[in-house]
């Protein structure tokens, strides 16, 4: 049973309270739901899914959000610290007892078991204390795992150290059962191995803490308090008490507490922590602001539109977390090996014992026990299992620092393999903010008429080019008539009737289609297009009446980012619905290899498929909305954003800032991460495939060399630490654009 607090927006009367309460009470699992009209909140008790509550409120015609701040990492960190301390304590106890025993054993400082049985019995009991105090969890874990037909690391450690102790105790109590040469005891090995493995666990915990640095940094972005305005008074309240629709004030230098829309004032906001974009963004009334970003000089009021888990910051954290927990294909294969590893090692240990017992030199039993013990101790499936996820964790987190949100491990792995990148032109290579730069009236019409007609037919359209026309009309104070019989012809333009005349407005293909002769204007059109402009033609009653020239400036860093892609060995293509000359001019400016021009929106994915058929591994970069099929078709789809408004999760990789450098960053991080995974896997694989045979004594017949079980313990304890430390190197990865 739990209590959930919801912020409810849209309630205007006491009657609303009843309908929201009814909606909530009808959700399965709700024991009680009560709505506070004054606070616009609801408190729900029961065993219930939050998503169902939000849906129930939405179905009733209101809006709800769970009121809580992002969970902080402090509890997790406290648990990790406690575990670290406990492991260190166990290490110190085992080390303090084990180290002197180890020195005694190496330098043979004490008489043998036959001569000083009582002394060795005491040492045996001391090492038993180590096993029980510092190693109890291994034995309990091994036994519990055994009962459910499972074998794990604990099994190997418990069997290895347990064998050492039991064998030593038997020798101490009944020395005569083995030949004189074999009366060696291994109490020190049991104690030191337990010490080393506890030390390894503690160090691994420390190193692992650093792997989640990126997520901690993101969580740390959310402020704890917010300044809300209630009944005309400004109050500082905890972040989880801010409701939807409340008005908040942000002062200079403060963090923005929740997502919202500015209703008064203006400022510049530093969004670099979310988008990687270093330049502060200007914000005015009507603009959106995101939780976690920092207000610079100005002060403003804003209305909360997203709280708790609805904020862009929360969604970014959720996406990064989820991605960090996914595995690419290489990881799955390794898991299959790790899954059967321990029982296989157990069998290898028994076979080692039998081999030494049957074919080894005297004292055979001694050799058989020591080699079996060493095999059990040296094997480390953890390093294998850890190799992939730990690198993904750091790699995905690192990418987020640069405003690159990777959806999953598979996308991370694929991005590194790309051989070709297809860029959508508008908004990707260019700013995506086209503006009218010239109007050329023809056939006796004047400039104002051409613009007025264009404005009339484009009113209401959301197309970026239409926006450019409407802005020009507004700037020039054009009074346009209403258009009738409006038809949009995808990839061509629009047709409509204005003041009884038929207007066609679009590209040259529209004119061709409608049989309109463009005559000498064709040359001007080619010349203007050749300079990278988009030229739209206007026809009135079947005759060409003018050209409207629109330019969309290239982003200042597009050329540099494309050069980086070339350096990474990637071919760069551009897709656009524009005229071929316009497209070529833009492509030449930024160094694009090949252009697909005059592509209809529905054909974009076909070009991606065509490149794939040529054997290319294709990344498609678009805005994530108009390019959805092409993004889905590509091996990796990149949605390029313009700040925190970007539709997160619309593609395999989301680039929070509008720069194409994000594509090169993502590919560079992907390659570095995959390289890191291979290093880890290679290390873990080599370690186990070399370590186990050496521990079993395969070198003995040739070199007389046998591995000391204590060395095996040290190697095992450090193998996982090495993997985590290698993954942590990715934290220092720097992309060239930064």
């Amino acid at each position, binding site marked *: 049973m739990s209590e959930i607090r919801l912020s409810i927006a849209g309630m205007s009367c006491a009657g609303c309270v009843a309908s929201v309460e009814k909606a909530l009470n009808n959700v399965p699992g709700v024991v009680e739901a009560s709505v506070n009209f004054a606070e616009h909140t609801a408190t729900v008790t029961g065993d219930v*899914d939050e998503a169902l509550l939000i849906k129930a409120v939405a179905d009733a015609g209101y809006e709800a959000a769970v009121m809580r701040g992002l969970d902080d990492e402090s*509890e*997790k960190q406290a*648990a*990790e610290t*406690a*575990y670290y301390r*406990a492991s260190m304590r166990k290490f110190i106890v085992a080390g303090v007892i084990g180290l002197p025993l180890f020195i005694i054993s190496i330098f043979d400082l004490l008489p043998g078991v036959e001569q000083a049985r009582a002394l060795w019995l005491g040492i045996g009991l001391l090492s038993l204390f180590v096993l029980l105090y510092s190693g109890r*969890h291994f034995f*309990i*874990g*091994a036994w*519990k*795992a*055994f*009962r*459910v*037909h*499972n*074998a*794990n*690391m*604990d099994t190997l450690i418990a069997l290895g150290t347990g064998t050492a102790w039991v064998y030593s105790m038997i020798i101490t109590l009944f020395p005569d059962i083995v030949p004189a040469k074999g009366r060696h005891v291994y109490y020190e090995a049991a104690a030191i191995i337990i010490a080393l493995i506890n030390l390894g*666990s503690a160090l*691994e*915990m420390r190193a*692992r803490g650093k792997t989640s640095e990126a997520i901690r940094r993101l969580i740390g972005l959310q402020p704890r308090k917010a300044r809300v305005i209630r009944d005309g008074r400004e109050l500082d309240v905890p972040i989880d008490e801010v409701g939807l629709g409340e008005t908040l004030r942000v002062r200079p230098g403060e963090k923005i507490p929740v997502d919202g829309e500015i209703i008064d004032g203006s400022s510049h906001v530093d969004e670099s922590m979310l988008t990687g974009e270093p330049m502060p963004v200007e914000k005015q009334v009507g603009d959106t602001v995101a939780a976690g970003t920092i207000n610079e000089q100005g002060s403003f009021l804003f209305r909360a539109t997203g709280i708790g888990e609805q904020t862009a910051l929360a969604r970014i954290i959720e996406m990064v*977390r*989820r991605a960090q*927990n*996914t*595995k690419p294909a290489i990881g*799955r294969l390794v*898991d299959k090996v*790790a*899954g*059967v*590893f*321990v*029982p296989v090692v*157990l*069998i290898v240990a*028994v*076979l080692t*014992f*039998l081999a030494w*017992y*049957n074919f080894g030199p005297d004292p055979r039993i001694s050799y058989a026990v020591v080699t079996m013990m060493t095999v059990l101790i040296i094997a480390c*499936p*953890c390093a*294998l*299992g*850890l190799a992939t*996820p730990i690198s993904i964790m750091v790699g995905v987190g690192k990418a987020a620092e640069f405003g690159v949100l990777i959806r999953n491990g598979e996308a991370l792995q694929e991005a590194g393999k790309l051989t070709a990148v297809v860029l959508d032109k508008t908004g990707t290579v260019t700013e995506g903010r086209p503006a009218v730069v010239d109007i050329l009236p023809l056939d006796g019409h004047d400039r104002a008429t051409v613009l007025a007609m264009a404005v009339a037919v484009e009113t209401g359209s959301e197309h970026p080019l239409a926006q450019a026309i409407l802005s020009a009309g507004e700037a020039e104070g054009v009074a346009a008539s209403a258009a009738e019989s409006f038809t949009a012809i995808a990839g061509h333009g629009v047709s409509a009737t204005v003041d009884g005349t038929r207007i066609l407005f679009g590209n040259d293909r529209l004119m061709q289609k409608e049989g309109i002769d463009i005559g000498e204007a064709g040359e001007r059109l080619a010349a203007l297009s050749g300079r990278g402009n988009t030229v739209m033609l206007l026809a009135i009653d079947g005759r060409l009446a003018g050209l409207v020239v629109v330019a969309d400036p290239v982003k200042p860093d597009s050329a540099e980012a494309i050069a980086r892609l070339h350096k990474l060995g990637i071919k760069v293509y551009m897709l656009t619905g524009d005229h071929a000359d316009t497209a070529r001019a833009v492509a030449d400016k930024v160094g694009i290899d090949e252009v697909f021009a005059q592509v209809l929106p529905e054909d974009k994915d076909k070009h991606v498929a065509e490149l794939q058929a040529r054997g290319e591994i294709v990344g498609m970069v678009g805005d994530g909305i108009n390019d959805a099929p092409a993004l889905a078709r590509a091996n990796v789809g990149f949605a390029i954003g313009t700040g925190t408004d970007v539709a997160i999760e619309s593609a395999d990789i989301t680039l929070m800032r509008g720069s194409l450098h994000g594509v090169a960053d993502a590919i560079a991080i992907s390659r570095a991460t995959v390289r890191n995974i291979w290093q880890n896997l290679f290390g873990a694989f080599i370690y186990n495939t070399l370590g186990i045979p050496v521990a079993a004594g395969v070198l003995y017949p040739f070199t007389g060399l046998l591995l000391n079980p204590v060395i095996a313990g040290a190697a095992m304890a450090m193998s996982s630490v090495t993997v985590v430390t290698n993954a942590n190197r990715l934290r220092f990865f720097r992309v060239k654009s930064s």
Partner: protein
Amino acid sequence: MNVFIVNGLGLLIIAGIIYWFWLSKPGAQKAEGETAIDVIVDNGVYDPARIEVPAGKTVTLRFIRKDASPCAAKVVFDDLGVTEELPVGKPHDVMLKIDEPGEYAFTCEMQMYRGVLQVV
């Protein structure tokens, strides 16, 4: 004589390992649709480690992690593409609906904690 006994015992242990860890399975605990089934995460094992769930019905597995070691930090249902972080000492619900009958493993990241969802 000793040699025969030791070798015989060795082979018997190997047969035992193969039987116990690969051929035989622990008894499964049945999960009913409505109520959550508690899975204790401690001492290197999920308890219960084998859970029988009905196909096509949503079941809730309530993981209660007692082991603070990093190994127990995540539970991974690899075949289902589900990975959840488990907080220490706080119950964490994982809701699953599996349509296809069969066996679905759930493990820790390092494959040391191992459990099986038996979908019937």
